[in-house]
Structures are given as C-alpha cells and as structure tokens.
C-alpha cells in the first residue's frame, strides 16, 4: 500500500526525469542539426592519419612525424601520466614533511615552513611555472654545460644522464625476485629459495648480456646519446609538486590537529616518544581524515598539469591542440580531452578510495 506522499514523490521524480530527458533530446537534436548546417562531420578516422609534426619529449614510446595522430596522442598521454604519477607521489611526500614540520615545537622551523607554504599556496600556479621555466633558461648553454660527474651534464637544454640499457631477461628475473620476496609469498621454511633463484638467474642474464652504458657527447647544437630530462619537464614537475604539496601540507596539519588531544597525552603518559606517538597513535586516526582530501589534491594536480603548454612541454592537451588545429577536428579532440581527464581523475579517485576503505577496515598504523 502506498501513502499519498509516496505517490507524490513518484510523480515528481517521473516529471523530473521526463524534463531532463526532453532537454537532453532537444540539445542532441539541435547539436546534430547545427553540425549538419555548418557542414561539420564528426568522426575519429583522422586518428589513423600521419601526424606530420615532431614531439620534443617522448618517454617509453618512440615517435616520428610519420607515425599516426593516434600514436602522437598516446605519447602525450604518457607524458601527462608521467608528470601526474611522479607529481602525485612527490607532492604527497613533500606535503607530509611540510605538514609535520608545521607542527614542530621549534618556532623558527615552524615559521619558515609556514611562510613558504603561504607564499606558494597563495600565488597562481601559472606564475610559479613561468618563473621556474625562466629560471632554468639561466643555466649555461650546452657548450659550457656544468658536468659535476663524468657523463652528467646540466645546461639550458636540460639534465643529460648516461643511458643504461639493460637486457630484457635481466629485468624480468630481477622483478620476479622482488615479487617472490614479498611477505605473503614466504611459504615454508625454505621460502628464500625462490627469490634467491630468481636473483641468480638475473645475475646470469646480466653476465650473458651485460648492460650497455652510453655517455652523451656534445654534437653541434646539442647532446647526442644519453637520456635528457628537459627543462620543461623539470619546471613543470617542480611547479606542480611545490604548488600541490603546499595544499597537502595544510590537509596533513589539519588532520593531525583534528585528533583529540587526550590521545596524545595518553600516549606520552605511557612513555611513548613524540615520533612513536605520531606514528602509532595520531597518524592511524589522522590518515582516515586525510585520504579523501589527498585524492582531491592528486586529481587537481593532474588537471593542473595541462598548463604544460605554457612552457612548451608536450602533454596530452598540447598534442591534442596541435592535432585539432591541423586536422580541423577540434570537437573530437575536445571530446578526447574530456575523456582522458575524466578517466585519469576517476582512476585516481577510485584507487585512493579503495585505500581509504582498506584503512577504515583495518586501521593499521603506518609502518
């Protein structure tokens, strides 16, 4: 049996759904009519066409102008992923340290960290980014590169390191050794046999196919060989980490302060040191309050990484802009951009959400 209120709710919700569906239908119909009237056709066939442009920074995936636009977008996506992943990990690490230091009993240290955090947190990220990029241009030209260690060069073309190419089997066995070393796989008294065997295999593989180290040389305008960490990547990463870690330090400080004072007093009454109190009593509680906000900060770091185009780092936005401009498929590239950022953000949110659920279930101390 339904009450009058229930029936009213059903009718109202049905009405709401109907209005939303009608609005969506109207927008879709207008969009397709307008696209047809303007002679625009949507399609993703252009992704298979050759790109015909060069990309400055490529990681993991080689790229040449004869490759397809789709591959160029993947290269950009990998660049965005690299910056996002490194940026998130570093920002959380730096943010944790800064947040804890702000609670330090030493007033000078506390004040210094506070000043740094306030300056970074209250200035636009773009400003910081342009400032860092311009600062890196002040490094010496490649002909006068600083070379603190043989094979390492620091110039306005970036940090050039020797390239190390390791045989495939060496990598496979070394990874297997690390996995086999995991506590959960330590079965039986002779558990150490498996990792030891893998490590030995890795060693044998390394002897059969020894790692090749290539040192960069100066050739004409630039260094040839070696691995280059471009100034754009360095400036982007530094700016994102500084900016986001300032925000994260506030999250950490707030979460620690939110733990009731009585718990800390009780811990010190039991004779625990400050570090033990923090690690075993305060953090397990504070972490639960922190994790959702850390996820938010990671997501905003990912989105902020799209400022890369300002200083010339080829992230996915930069490459999609170029592709859209050269093929005229700007609506499609915009859709790809939306899909990329939406999935990256949701992925990070889901991962940290799972970690948070795990914390709520177990409540373990950080170790």
């Amino acid at each position, binding site marked *: 049996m339904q009450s009058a209120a229930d029936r009213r709710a059903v009718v109202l919700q049905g009405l709401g759904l109907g209005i939303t569906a009608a609005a969506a239908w109207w*927008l879709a*119909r*207008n*969009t397709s*009519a*307008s*696209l047809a*009237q*303007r*002679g*625009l056709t949507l399609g993703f066939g252009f992704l298979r066409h050759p790109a*015909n*442009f*060069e*990309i*400055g920074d490529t990681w993991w995936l080689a790229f040449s*102008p004869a490759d397809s636009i789709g591959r160029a977008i993947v290269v950009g996506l990998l660049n965005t992923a690299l910056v996002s992943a490194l940026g998130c990990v570093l920002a959380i690490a730096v943010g944790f340290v800064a947040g804890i230091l702000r609670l330090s009993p030493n007033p000078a240290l506390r004040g210094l960290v506070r000043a740094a955090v306030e300056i970074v947190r209250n200035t636009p990220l*773009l400003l910081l980014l*342009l400032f860092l*990029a*311009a600062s*890196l*241009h*002040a490094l010496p*030209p490649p002909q006068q590169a600083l070379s603190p260690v043989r094979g390492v060069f620091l110039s*306005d*073309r970036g940090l050039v390191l020797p390239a190390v190419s390791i045989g495939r089997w060496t990598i496979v066995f070394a990874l297997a050794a690390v996995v086999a070393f995991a506590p959960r796989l330590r079965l039986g008294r002779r558990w150490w046999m498996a990792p030891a065997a893998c490590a030995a295999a890795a060693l044998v593989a390394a002897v059969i196919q020894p790692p090749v180290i290539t040192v960069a040389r100066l*050739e*004409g*305008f*630039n260094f*040839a060989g070696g691995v280059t960490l471009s*100034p*754009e990547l360095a400036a982007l990463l530094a700016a994102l980490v500084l900016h986001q870690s300032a925000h994260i330090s506030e999250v950490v400080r707030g979460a620690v302060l939110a733990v009731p004072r009585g718990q800390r007093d009780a811990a010190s009454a039991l004779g625990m040191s400050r570090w033990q109190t923090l690690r075993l009593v305060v953090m397990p509680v504070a972490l639960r309050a922190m994790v959702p906000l850390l996820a938010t900060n990671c997501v905003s770091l990912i989105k902020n990484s799209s*400022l890369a*185009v*300002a*200083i*010339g780092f*080829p992230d996915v936005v*930069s490459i999609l*802009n*170029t592709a859209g*401009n*050269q*093929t*005229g498929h*700007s*609506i499609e590239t*915009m859709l790809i951009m939306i899909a990329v950022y939406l999935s990256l953000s949701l992925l990070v949110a889901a991962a940290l959400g799972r970690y948070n659920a795990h914390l709520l279930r177990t409540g373990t101390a950080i170790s």
Partner: protein
Amino acid sequence: MRARFRSPLGIRRAAAALALGAAISLAACTTESAPGATPNGTAGGATPTLSAVRARGAVKCGITEGAGFATPDDAGRWRGFDVDFCRAIAVALFNDPDKVQFIPYTQEQRFSGLQSGEVDLLANGTTITSSRALRQSFHFGPIYFYDGQGFLVAKSSKVTKASQLDGATICVQQGTTTELNLTDFARRNNITFHPVVMEDLRAAVSALAGGRCDAISQDGAGLATTRTMLQHPNDYVVLPDRISKEPIAPVVRTGDDAWLEIVNWVLRAPVQAEEYGIDQHNAAQFAKTTDPSIRRFLGLEPGATDGLGLDPEWTLHVIEKVGSYKDIFDRNLGPATPLGIDRGLNKLWTDGGLLYSPPFR
C-alpha cells in the same frame, strides 16, 4: 601563419570552446526559424551574416595581436595592417571606419570563434591551405599578404642558412601551420631538430633570449615582429630562407555568398586603387576624372559593384578613409615603421610582385 602575441592562457580558450559548444547546441533554434535563408542567399539579398551585421550596425572582426598587424595604441584604438582591412569593410558598409568590433584571438581559438558565429570574419593572418578550405567549412577571401616561413637566430650562433640548423632546438608557437612546415622541411633535408612548442609567443621569445632555443620559426612577417620583442634585436637575424608558401587571406563561414562577395571586393579595392595611382591624399581629385574605368571603379558611373548592395561610391570612401594598399602597407609594415618589412612579393603585378586585382567593371 603569422604568429603573434597571445592573451593569457586558459580563460579565452575555455571561453571560445564553451562558445562553440553552446552555439552549436543552441543555434539551431534561430536557423530553423528562417528556413532556406542560408544556402541560396544571392548577392545583395538578405543573408544571415550580412543582415546580422546591418542590424548590429558594426562588423565583428577576429584578429590576432601583433606589432604592425593588430595592436591597440595609447588611446586603446586598434591599429595595424589586418585592422585596416577590417576598417575598410566597415567603411564600405557604414561609411565609418569605427563601426568595427575587434575580437582578439589566439591562433588556436580563431576557428572556433568563427564557427560559433562570434565574429563575421577573420583577418588575422590565416594561411590558405586546401585542408582548411575543404574540411573546416570555411571560405577564404582574396590573398592580401604573401609570406613564407623562416627562422630567427642569434647572430652569435654563426648560422647563415636554414640547412645548418641540424640538431638545433627550435621554438615554435602552437596552433599554426609552422609545426607542419618545419617537420616537412627537416624530413626533406634529412636533418633532425628538437621542437619546443609554446602556446604563447612571449614564452618562445624568452626561451630564445635565454638560450633554451637556437631558433624561432614562424612566418617572415611574424619574425620581423618577434625580433622587435627581443631586448637586443640587433643581436638576432632573420635567415633569408623561406621554407613554405604562406598566402594570407580573410576567412568567412561557408553558405553566405553575399557576405563573401563583399569581403572579396572590399579587399581588392585598395589593390586596384594603387594600380590606378589613387591614394588617400589624391582621391578627391579623382572624383573629377574622365577616365571611364576609374569612373566605374570609384562608382561615379553605375554598374561595376551594384550587386553588392553597398553605397555606389563605397570604393571612394574606402580609399579616403583607409587608403590604397600602398598607404596601408607603408603605414603599418613598411620601411618607415619599426618592422621595416620589404614589399617583396607584395608588390603590384605591374612592379614584379603578386598583387593583382580582377577588374572592377
């Protein structure tokens, strides 16, 4: 593609994207209410762009900021080569060079701005290419500037021709044909280069000044502008090589023939005026000429441009208020300006250049 100054990031781009999205989603309501108006608008008849311009009382012209081509002066009035061609259209329609609204775009926003109907035409240094003309639902007007892509390098680099740039780091501005031309040039000549693609030209200039890049590559006219942005312009030199053809023309939306014809003929008028030896200062004397072709051109005898639906003497007004091609070029780009660009290909066909107006008759 000439590359110019850019407005700050983000906001304008987001605005253009939103405008495009919104316009595409919402625009059909207006077009549906006037069925058939678009495809077969005849010269002089009511067409969406022309009637919108007349109702508004002003032309909306998409430009891209850059010294000599479009910059606001001390009083905030837009000046420049592109700006003058927009003003010529305003004079032809309203006999008033100030009836123009200038909308500054980055190279990357411009096509969305035109597609969404935010502007009536682009006069911002867009290169005619077949793919743009065929794929993007645009029409190009007559070529009003002939350019080609080149390189700006520091004199200290001792580079004198483009083929010596093997291995160089080259800064380019995003959203232009520059990246494509540069890549083709490198592949054709079997050299390698490392691109740094900036959204803002100023970032590229600071990268060149700081030594991050060995060269900036853009169109010749753009390089002349860029060189003036450097702190020590005399330490830098534009290489003589031109690695591409860059015919610059105004852009309008397809499906509006009457509007396209107005843009076509108004942009040809200053070229024809120079050919007849008419300029801003002597135009009034030509009102008494007996030369029948000049009389037809100036609208003193009817017939030549009646179909456009403009004031019969619009050409005379354009020459008096904006000038001949020579007036416009010398005022904004010529040797008397900081840019000091040579007429080069932009001389009249009678002087060995490429400028050639079809006859007004």
